[in-house]
């Protein structure tokens, strides 16, 4: 297992480097002088010169990249002039909230998708199946921000079921506050989840070994658990993992809509205030998050499916 993990990590290394290069290049996309842009209204000739020197803007590109890597390895991703804080700390202290929201949304998303996907798969090609697929197809087109404000209107204003925005105090109060945002994100990703789960389950249901199981007269519970779900389990794992990019995208929007103090709203606000260093770092963090989730998904797959050899 250790060797499997090590092998996977080795494969990821080039991607991590590639991601860092893309992020590095982002700042250089800014038309005009990046230093001026970063400083924004704080730009004075001395500060401009200092930032230019920090970034090494007069040096060849590859040396700039090395400087960037050097700073990064020390956790120095610049400072936000808007917040007067290190970009690193600013972002990291908001990560837990975002992770909570993402997880919460994923759980609700699965709670919505799994029953419908199972129902549709078991009743495939019937009107139930078509109806379910139709409804979820319609759901894909619902803009998440619109859904957010509509749900807020209905469940927070008209009917005072949930609080409007923020994250409240700790523990259950936080869950209470995060429910509407998580629900919105969940509805947003549910069509993707439902579609994947349904086709995986159909594949399993059609499998020869399921016919064998039926022919052996196994009890329905045994069939469901040992034959259908144990084989259908792997898609359950990978479906969320593979679609984490979509999940994160939705989370960013919803955090901003509901005023959840996570990494997503930080990103949007920073874009609006032209706080480039934060934008750069948050992008990096989110990409790393995706890579990490994909790695964990791979490992979970390997742990669950005996056919995947852990030797390689």
């Amino acid at each position, binding site marked *: 297992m250790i060797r499997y993990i090590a092998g996977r990590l080795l494969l990821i290394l080039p991607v991590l480097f590639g991601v860092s290069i893309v992020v590095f290049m982002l700042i250089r996309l800014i038309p005009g002088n990046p230093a001026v842009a970063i400083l924004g209204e704080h730009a004075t000739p001395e500060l401009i010169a200092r930032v230019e020197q920090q970034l090494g803007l007069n040096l060849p590109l590859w040396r700039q990249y090395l400087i960037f890597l050097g700073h990064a390895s020390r956790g120095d991703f610049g400072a936000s002039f808007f917040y007067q804080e290190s970009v690193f700390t600013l972002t990291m202290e908001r990560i837990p909230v975002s992770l909570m929201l993402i997880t919460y949304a994923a759980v609700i998303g699965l709670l919505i998708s799994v029953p419908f996907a199972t129902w549709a798969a078991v009743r495939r090609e019937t009107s139930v199946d078509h109806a379910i697929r139709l409804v979820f197809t*319609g759901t894909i087109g619902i803009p998440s921000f*619109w859904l957010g404000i509509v749900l807020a209107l209905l469940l927070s204003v008209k009917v005072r079921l949930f609080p409007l925005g923020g994250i409240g105090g700790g523990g259950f109060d936080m869950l209470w506050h995060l429910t509407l945002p998580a629900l919105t994100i969940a509805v947003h990703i549910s069509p993707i989840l439902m579609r994947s789960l349904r086709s995986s389950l159909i594949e399993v249901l059609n499998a*020869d070994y399921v016919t064998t199981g039926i022919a052996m007269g196994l009890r329905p519970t045994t069939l469901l658990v040992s034959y259908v779900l144990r084989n259908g389990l792997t898609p359950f794992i990978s479906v969320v993992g593979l679609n984490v990019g979509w999940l994160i995208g939705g989370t960013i929007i919803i955090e901003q809509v509901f005023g959840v103090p996570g990494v997503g709203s930080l990103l949007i606000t920073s874009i609006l205030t032209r706080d480039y260093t934060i934008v750069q770092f948050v*992008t990096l963090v989110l990409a790393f998050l995706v890579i990490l989730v994909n790695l964990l998904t791979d490992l979970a797959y390997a742990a669950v499916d005996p056919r995947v050899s852990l030797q390689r």
Partner: protein
Amino acid sequence: MSAVSTIAPPRPARRWWFATAGVPLRVGLVGIFTIAVLAALAPVIAPYDPTALGLAGGLQPPSAAHWFGTDQLGRDILTRVLYAARIDLQIGTIGVAIPLVMGVVIGLFAGYYASWPDAILGRVIDVVTAFPFLVLVLAIVAMLGPGLKNFYIAISLVSWVAYARIVRGEALGVRGRGYILAARSLGYSDARIVFRHLLPNVIVPALVFGMSDFVLDILAGASLGYFGLGVQPPATEWGVMIAEGRNFIVTAPWVVIFPGIAIVITSFFVSLIGDSVSDIVRRVHAS
């Protein structure tokens, strides 16, 4: 069990699925065609001028004079929804067209030549797909500045990868086939082989993906519009309309409802088409 599967369903059953398979497809095509026509004819059929400020006061509920009501500046919402359709449909179309062309060409050549071009493309794909789509688009727009043009640049820089990945996979699979080898032995130029022999056989999955990408782009455009990072006023776009109306959602929900419904319906029709086509392609492959 394979002996059983060789028994094909008898003919009446087959005719039945064909007829009903057509329904979602037809509904989608008719729907999107209608929207496109309405959008194109907006200047002609819209009851009012989209920027005309109302004299009667704003936030009027839907009525005979204003089917969709008016917004806080007294502008007719139906008119604005129609005009916004032009922008949003354009976003979907261009947002697919440019990456499609870029991605297909790159993917084709990489898949055809294999070896190092494909290896490089593979790495590039891995890197770009490590970023959540919206995050990368937002980041690029953040650097370049808001606006429709920069939005297109951002989309193009990010989306082409998905098409390249699809086409490259297909091309790698097909490049060893007989008709390709035959063409090469005849001394045809690489470009000719790629475009006239490889392309037609690998384009379909890319086109199918293009349809869901269309929806994705409209949603991305609307999302950016909502945050003020996309289409800039005075141009109208559904997401921008929703943003403008969001403060009045309690007292005048129609300002926000109708543009949202417009997005949902448009995406729905396009998704129907995309699903139907991929269904058909799958059935063709299975036979």
